[in-house]
């Protein structure tokens, strides 16, 4: 431990702590601009200057490590003068005209710092040169006139997201934030996660939707979770007068530690803004959907369900809350014994996992956090650029921050190809063979030993695998060498492995993992897929018979093509939906329900963590929550939905620990 004095206060900190962090942890305020608690120290703005006894000049507290016996003073007339000077230089460098900026009045860290230093003016006027405004991106604008070159956006793009789109060109006062090799943002490799917008201290990175909707400082905020996919990232939502202003990543949530993707920040919000919503129950009369009362709609629904008891099919979106999923299965399976009760995803993300979990009698997967410490990441059959982007960000930032190796095995042209020297483009459906080949290759190379019986002739197995997968056997050996020589490998696998009722590929994968002493992780589709499969909502989907009644509980989710086709075969379709879609247009009864922002409830993420989603805004008066509609429907069918959703989650073994 290091002992130092800051403003006369005796402080003890761990070695390597910077003076700024030491002060912050002890409640001593030092103004900063380029510093961000979740980024590495940079020392760019010089606002955090402090006096260190014995030092020749003022020192930037964000980059000097605390040392034994150090005596630091954070406010003296000399420091205040230096800070005012630093701020004057920043204000004069570009065009900082507060009255026309959307963050002026509390959201701008530059302005707040100036007020804090009691600046009433700056002596040097700008030179009235204009800087570019890049509005090529649909969701945010880069207004270089307001940029203070703190490089937080650049560091965020690199350190948090690992995307390295943003960078700096030129030097000194001519420095400019650019995307890629100076192309417009909209045409760059930007993945639109918006982390740079969230971390920008001024109005330079401007969110097109929330700009001028109101100051964040004056809005109310609540911490919730994103239910866009099975990661369950923490988000912080700012809202005012029943309107969502913007969504930021929640740095306090241990799952994503602040990083979210475009889906969580923008896509769902824009969809909410733009989609046509149902505001009242609708019943098809004379071939047309006509508004009806809740009582009429529920009465009609229950009559239809009763009359087609034997031919009833029910499907629910696995993007809904545990409460809704459990209510759904209790009503349709336990009470009505419907022929088909399943989720829109069916067995894709669960069968193999469940089987293995039952065999082992417990969980075998690890947490997402192990990616950050891995020195080799192996992805098999999962495109983390298209889905579960935040996991992709974690992998990419690990590659650039810790120089980890990445091995991609995919039958698709994986978008990770460019990040990985070890990319195996295998033939579709040969995941099992390639894993077997890797096991044998590890034995052949003498890197690991295998205690399975079928590894007697590793050479032949590698050859066979190479032939089956359509790749040269040398590349299998290369990849085996890469993973066999790493100390902390993590294997991320996807639908190609889990979508197999006999779990053959997964069994081999477990064997490989055991040899490597690695960690296994799989992402699981939609936000509540794991809960859906724990409740048994993962039957194979087939309905097409005439005379059937289909109940589809969708809320703001959409049916995939396969389901839409299946749904066409049904005689009567009852839909619980938020938005008007192609599918709802052909429905016979539509019951309007809340979307992700309007209904609260529990979700189980792919690591098995049970999280609470907050209700953010009120729905229309005549729109009810899915859970409420299900319980009202149950009442009409003489049933009361039990409340054991939490117990039911852990009734069967799962591949992760649910808690």
């Amino acid at each position: 431990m290091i002992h130092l004095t800051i403003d006369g206060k005796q402080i003890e900190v761990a070695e390597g702590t910077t003076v700024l962090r030491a002060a912050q942890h002890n409640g001593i305020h030092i103004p900063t601009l380029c510093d961000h608690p979740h980024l590495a120290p940079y020392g760019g703005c010089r606002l955090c200057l402090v006096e260190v006894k014995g030092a020749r000049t003022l020192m930037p507290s964000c980059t000097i490590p605390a040392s034994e016996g150090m005596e630091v003073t954070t406010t003296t007339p000399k420091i205040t003068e230096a800070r005012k000077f630093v701020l004057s230089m920043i204000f004069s460098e570009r065009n900082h005209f507060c009255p026309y900026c959307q963050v002026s009045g509390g959201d701008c860290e530059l302005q707040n710092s100036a007020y804090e230093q009691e600046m009433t003016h700056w002596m040097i006027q700008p030179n009235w040169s204009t800087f570019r405004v890049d509005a090529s991106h649909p969701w945010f604008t880069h207004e270089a006139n307001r940029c203070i070159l703190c490089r937080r956006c650049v560091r965020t793009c690199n350190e948090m997201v690992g995307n390295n789109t943003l960078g700096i060109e030129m030097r000194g006062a001519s420095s400019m934030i650019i995307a890629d090799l100076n192309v417009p943002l909209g045409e760059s490799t930007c993945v639109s996660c918006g982390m740079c917008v969230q971390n920008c201290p001024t109005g330079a990175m401007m969110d097109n939707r929330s700009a001028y909707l109101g100051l964040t400082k004056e809005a109310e905020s609540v911490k919730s979770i994103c239910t866009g996919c099975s990661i369950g990232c923490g988000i912080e939502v700012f809202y005012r007068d029943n309107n969502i202003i913007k969504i930021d990543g929640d740095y306090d949530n241990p799952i994503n530690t602040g990083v979210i993707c475009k889906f969580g920040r923008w896509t769902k919000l824009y969809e909410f803004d733009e989609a046509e919503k149902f505001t009242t129950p609708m019943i098809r009369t004379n071939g047309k959907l006509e508004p009806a009362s809740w009582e009429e709609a529920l009465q009609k629904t229950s009559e239809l369900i009763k009359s087609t008891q034997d031919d009833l099919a029910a499907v629910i979106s696995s993007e809904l809350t545990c409460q809704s999923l459990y209510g759904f299965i209790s009503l349709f399976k336990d009470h009505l014994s419907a022929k088909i009760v399943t989720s829109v995803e069916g067995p894709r993300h669960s069968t193999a996992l469940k089987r293995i979990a039952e065999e082992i009698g417990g969980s075998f997967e690890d947490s997402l956090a192990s990616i950050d410490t891995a020195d080799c990441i192996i992805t098999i059959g999962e495109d983390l650029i298209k889905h579960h982007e935040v996991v992709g960000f974690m992998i990419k930032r690990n590659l650039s921050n810790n120089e980890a190796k990445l091995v991609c095995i995919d039958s698709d042209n994986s978008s990770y190809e460019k990040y990985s020297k070890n990319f195996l483009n295998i033939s579709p459906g040969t995941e099992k063979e390639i894993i077997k080949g890797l096991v044998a290759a590890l034995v052949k190379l003498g890197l690991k030993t295998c205690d399975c019986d079928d590894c007697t002739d590793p050479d032949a197995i590698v050859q066979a695998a190479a032939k089956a997968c359509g790749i040269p056997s040398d590349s299998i050996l290369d990849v085996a060498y890469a993973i066999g020589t790493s100390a902390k490998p993590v294997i991320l696998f996807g639908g190609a492995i889990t979508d197999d009722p006999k779990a053959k590929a997964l069994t081999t994968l477990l064997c490989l993992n055991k040899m490597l002493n690695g960690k296994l992780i799989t992402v699981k589709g939609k936000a509540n897929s794991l809960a859906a499969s724990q409740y048994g909502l993962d039957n194979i989907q087939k309905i097409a018979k005439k005379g059937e009644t289909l109940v589809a509980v969708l809320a703001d989710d959409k049916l995939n093509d396969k389901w839409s086709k299946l749904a066409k075969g049904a005689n009567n379709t009852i839909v619980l939906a938020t938005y008007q879609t192609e599918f709802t247009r052909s429905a016979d009864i539509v019951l309007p329900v809340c979307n992700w922002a309007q209904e609260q409830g529990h979700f189980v993420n792919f690591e098995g963590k049970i999280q609470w989603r907050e209700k953010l805004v009120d729905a229309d008066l005549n729109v009810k929550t899915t859970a409420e509609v299900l319980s009202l429907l149950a009442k009409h069918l003489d049933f009361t939905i039990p409340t054991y959703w939490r117990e039911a989650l852990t009734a069967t073994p799962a591949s992760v620990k649910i808690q």
Partner: protein
Amino acid sequence: MAKPKVSSDWCAGCSGCHMSFLDMDERLLELVNLADIRATPFTDLKHPDEDGVQIGIIEGGINNLTHIEVVKRMRERSKYLVAFGDCAVFGGVPAMRNFFDLQETLHYVYVDTISTDESGKIPNDPEVAVMTRVQAISEVVKVDVFLPGCPPSADAIFYTLSELAKRRMPKLTGDLLNWH
């Protein structure tokens, strides 16, 4: 001791700062007790007293030669010069003009704009002041007190003037200090 004299004038501003001055409401009476309000845009006198005033106030930045004359006269005749509002302190909204060529701007405003008549004509009467680049007051004369804000709040104005009238140098902090 006699009450200190206060005089104000405006240049390239929107008069909003002076409106905010009037927002002091009943405190105007308090201010009148503290200071002798002389030539201002809302009193009858046209120019600050030739024998000088204690406090001279300028709203707005400088965008033509007349403004330079106004500001210089105010500077000569006042002991303390207050730059009143964002335009006087920084150049403010009129300073956006500096990003464009002056002739182009005039052409756009008087000829190209939809609302102008077809024979759009840029005023060229010799009586019209010659336009210049927009400047903050402090770029032309020495300023003693900066009172930023768009407009400064009535509280900030009252505080600043009453402090000066009591012969103290105002120090804007907290809620009184804002230029947004």
